[in-house]
């Protein structure tokens, strides 16, 4: 396969931009968290592309750690969503005007 390494990095940049747009534009907490997952996946893609290009497995190990941190982030983020939903039903971030309840 003769794909230029720049193509992989460009794809990663496009996916990261889509994730940034989703995080900033959506008004739903769960979909904002999913946009963060899209961004983390884009970073993994560029790490694997560099790892392939430099013939160095360290990039893949970094991507593995990114996946572990993403799992931790999903657990904590969705725990926060459930705790918020118990106090105040609804998923819109505009409804969350107070931090104390």
């Amino acid at each position, binding site marked *: 396969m003769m794909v230029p390494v720049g193509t992989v990095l*460009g794809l990663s*940049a496009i996916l990261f931009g889509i994730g940034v747009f989703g995080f900033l534009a959506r*008004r739903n907490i769960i979909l904002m968290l999913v946009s963060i997952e899209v961004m983390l996946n884009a970073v993994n893609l560029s790490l694997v592309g560099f790892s392939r290009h430099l013939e160095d497995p360290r990039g893949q190990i970094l991507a593995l750690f990114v996946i572990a941190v993403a799992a931790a982030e999903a657990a904590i983020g969705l725990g926060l969503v459930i705790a918020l939903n118990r106090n105040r039903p609804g998923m819109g971030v505009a409804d969350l005007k107070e931090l104390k309840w």
Partner: protein
Amino acid sequence: MTVLSASFYYMAAASVVSALLAVTRRDPVHSMLWVLVLFLHVAGIFLLLGAEFLAAVQVIVYAGAILIFYLFVVMLLDLPDERARPRFGNHWPFAVGAGLSFVALAWVGRSAVPASLGAGTIPAIEGTARGAAPMGSLSEIGMALFGPFTLPFEIASLVLLAAIIGAVVLVRKRATGS
């Protein structure tokens, strides 16, 4: 154009399209399913780039565990008025600008990498024909994880433990009367 590079471009296009659909669908369940499509295509790209173990982890952990967890939470919380709400806040053009400027920034940075790094093409996957274990294989990743990366590996397990405890503490119902 060989079959491999054609399949790479197909997966790249499909992942961009599914990511765009994922952040723009109104129904959260549809968004989750498009993100699932995105993750599977990214796993395919990992496979093409020679990261077999990472592709398996992507399918098992990302698509299999994390995304199903998201789907559970979406279906657990009843969201009756979610479809009636506006999808985006009023400031969504600024979000488009931020995303596009990030793409442009990364694009500029991509063309600014040194020629020794950015100009080459990704070498073909040799397969297992040569004697040494191919890069990205399970044995090489495992040797690196238990060799020079032992400390980060253990710290990752601590992060996961802290996340488990934190999730249990957050979601636990408080004792009545407190």
